[in-house]
């Protein structure tokens, strides 16, 4: 009787399992094609996500924040590229393009990118969202800070007309201010990516040499050939300018005020960093304290460019309490702080109202705006948390971060302790009982 029932139950279980296998497999098969579509979309979006970071790290410096191109470097947000074949784009990226600034990027040809990463870059060019890419570039602190164009100083520009052949020089200066200053810098004094042109060594070169370089570019460098965008006369004017730059008054082509690009994420980071590092001396809202000048004031913000602010934060101000922050923060973090400070410009007061410390009377009547040491979160930024487990400071931090009691900790502790104590209690209690004899022969 009992056997028959067991048999029946087991047979039913087996039948049920078979039914489950058949039905779920059928259901899975019906769903398979849509699953495959979803999986393909997921692969693409994962590749695009990685390629945006790669773009920020490798390409943005020449092809621009949003793939719009800088100077002579072509734009990538170009609909024509979307219709190109995969092979053409892949080969261009992996092997570079002869006679242009485009180097070979594949590891086989001495570049930094793996085949897989180059495939991802092609995906970015053909399917990518350039606005999202621009945000990624900014958040990584890799926005190209090259000045794009500028306007010549009008007073000095007028003076140039009095020089011999002044009109030619003026044309050349205007071309330089719109096309060359991006790389060759203010007054042609050079930047990190291109050499100075306002230089005796360059002036010593022959006109032929200079003309050839401007017309055909300099293979293997960022210098592109300009014969497509400049006429022969304009190129001659540029040669004239380069050869006679010592006659041109200094400061005629100023460094343009390039705003540091920001995103919501970078502003939030800047706000956190400001609170943690700057607010103690400069005040929580930049109103200044007796220790340091106010930042939230029209006079400072309108006259100081983002680049200058970055420079001040990075290198500090010698002879004052302003330390060198470049040692403690990355460029991206400093740029985030600049972006955060820049936000105040619209509402900044004409005259700063520095916070006065303390105030008199009992604690609840005192001026609460002054920051005290106790309010400051522990110094340290998000990427300094990585470290060795044995570092006592580190573990200290880990403890303070996690000692807040919540229900999960209570549940875990209560559960583990009650299980353990029950087991121990059961064990000890049953040990004290006389053991039954049947188990051991």
């Amino acid at each position: 009787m009992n056997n028959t029932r067991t048999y029946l139950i087991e047979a039913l279980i087996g039948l049920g399992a078979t039914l489950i296998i058949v039905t779920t497999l059928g259901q899975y098969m019906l769903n398979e094609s849509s699953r495959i579509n979803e999986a393909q979309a997921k692969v693409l979006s994962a590749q695009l996500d990685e390629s945006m970071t790669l773009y920020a790290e490798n390409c943005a410096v020449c092809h621009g924040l949003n793939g719009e191109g800088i100077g002579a470097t072509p734009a990538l947000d170009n609909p024509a590229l979307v219709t190109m074949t995969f092979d053409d784009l892949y080969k261009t990226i992996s092997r570079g393009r002869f006679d242009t600034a485009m180097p070979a990027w594949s590891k086989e040809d001495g570049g930094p990118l793996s085949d897989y990463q180059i495939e991802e870059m092609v995906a970015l060019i053909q399917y990518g969202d350039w606005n999202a890419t621009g945000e990624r570039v900014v958040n990584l602190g890799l926005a190209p800070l090259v000045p794009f164009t500028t306007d010549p100083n009008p007073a000095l520009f007028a003076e140039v007309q009095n020089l011999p052949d002044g009109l030619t020089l003026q044309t050349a200066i205007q071309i330089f201010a719109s096309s060359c200053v991006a790389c060759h810098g203010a007054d042609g004094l050079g930047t990190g990516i291109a050499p100075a042109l306002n230089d005796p060594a360059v002036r010593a070169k022959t006109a032929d040499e200079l003309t050839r370089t401007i017309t055909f570019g300099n293979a293997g460098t960022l210098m592109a050939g300009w014969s497509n965008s400049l006429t022969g006369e304009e190129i001659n004017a540029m040669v004239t300018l380069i050869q006679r730059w010592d006659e041109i008054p200094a400061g005629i082509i100023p460094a343009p005020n390039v705003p540091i690009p920001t995103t919501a994420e970078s502003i939030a980071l800047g706000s956190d960093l400001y609170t943690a590092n700057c607010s103690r001396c400069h005040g929580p809202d930049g109103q200044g304290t007796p220790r340091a000048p106010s930042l939230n004031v029209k006079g400072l913000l309108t006259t100081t460019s983002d680049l200058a602010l970055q420079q001040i934060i990075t290198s500090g101000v010698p002879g004052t309490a302003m330390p060198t922050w470049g040692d403690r923060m990355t460029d991206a973090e400093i740029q985030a702080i600049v972006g955060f400070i820049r936000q105040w410009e619209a509402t900044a007061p004409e005259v700063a109202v520095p916070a006065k410390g303390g105030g008199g009377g009992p604690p609840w009547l005192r001026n609460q705006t002054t920051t005290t040491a106790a309010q400051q979160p522990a110094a340290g930024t998000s990427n300094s948390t990585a470290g060795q487990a044995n570092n006592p400071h580190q573990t200290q931090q880990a403890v303070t971060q996690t000692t807040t009691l919540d229900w999960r900790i209570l549940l875990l502790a209560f559960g583990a302790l009650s299980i353990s104590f029950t087991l121990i209690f059961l064990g000890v209690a049953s040990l004290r009982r006389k053991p039954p004899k049947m188990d051991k022969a």
Partner: protein
Amino acid sequence: MTEPTPQPNPEPSMIDRMRERLVPDAMPSDDRGRMRMVMDSLVLHIHPAKVEASTLKWTYTWGLGGLAGLLMTILGLTGIVLINNYTPAAPQAYLDILELNSNVWFGELIRNLHHWSANLLIVVSVLHLIRVFVTGAYRPPRELNWLIGVAMLLLVIGANFTGYLLPWDQLAYWAITVGTSIISYVPLIGNWLSRLILGGPEVGANTLLNFYSMHISFIPLLIFGLMSYHFWRVRKDGGLTLPKKAESDSQVKPERVTTIPHLIRREFIFAIVWIAIILVFAMLVPAPLEGIANPDISPNPAKAPWYFMGLQELLLHFHPLFGAIILPGLAILAVFLLPFFDINLTSVGVYFRSQRGRSLTLLGIGLALIATPIWVVLDEYVLNWNAWLPTWDMLISNGLIPLAVVLLPLIFLDEWIYKTFRADTEERVLFIATFLFTAFIVLTIIGIFFRGPGMSLYWPWAIPTIH
């Protein structure tokens, strides 16, 4: 008798002959025929013709050995399919997995089946080992099968570990990097061995090829051979262990039933239920796949495969030579030597030896559950032997002393249960083994869930993500 009509005997068609060869005329209906069938078949021959009815109880073996065999079969079949869409080269391996997931019909399902079966196999193998241990089924004459079983467990872990690298994603790359870094702590030949296994100074394309060939040829071959032997040995050693009968019962003959259908039926039902469970699980939970392996970007924390997290946790508390080589080596040696250590045969087939053994097991688990986290937290925040004994050799200050701190209480505990509860040798072995194994499980759980960036302790829900 009538003479047969002189008709020409119709030759059976080829199809009929093939069917006859494949399917016997009919299932034998009597016990004798069924027993014959087992005797005559190679595959069924792993079972005896008759088994004792009491060994069929679900709750005695829990079917763990059979489940391990079933998982091996699933792994073999899905593995053969997976080989067809895989190239053991970087980065093509990763692209192949991506393609498998997004461009091959049933590709992801096959991969999920393989992945989850492999991980389940480790759990099941360990549970099987525990079952055999607590019922004393490793005692002579079964000691050889115990050794084969332990060797297979190590091979299963090896198979899982070599397979772990094959997707060539970040998870695989760094888990294998952490896992193989232990090799270089082997005394004298460590660096040479590490280079031999990795095929170079670090995990790379050569490692992938090495692991792939190990994963699809050597290890499966060994497992298949040992598995066949293991099954056969169970029969040769007299089937499953049974409790000794009391004197009064020894006259009563145990009830024996034929293998077909009683044992075979249960095996089939068990297999089909587990196939259903694994299939549904594999359909619902995809196997993890992260970004392509990138040697330049290491995740924080970089963790070994989950079954090595207990070892990685040990490494945080001991000198690597102790944490990675000596302690695990001693543990494996102890497991191997277990059948030869205590050959008292009185309690074979009884779960946890005796009533006292059951109590001591509970006690051991409970004590280990409390002691291990306390020790981990103490060692993390308070104990700092290196700083306290700066002039001492690291091997002593960070190896021997912590080991003594851990082992001395255990020795006192052993003395205590010996003196207070009069536990005999086998119960003491059971107690110590239970305590150590529970401690290892707790360490594994702490390593998997409670370790965050920099391998610092965190609550599982408060682990910060760091890029």
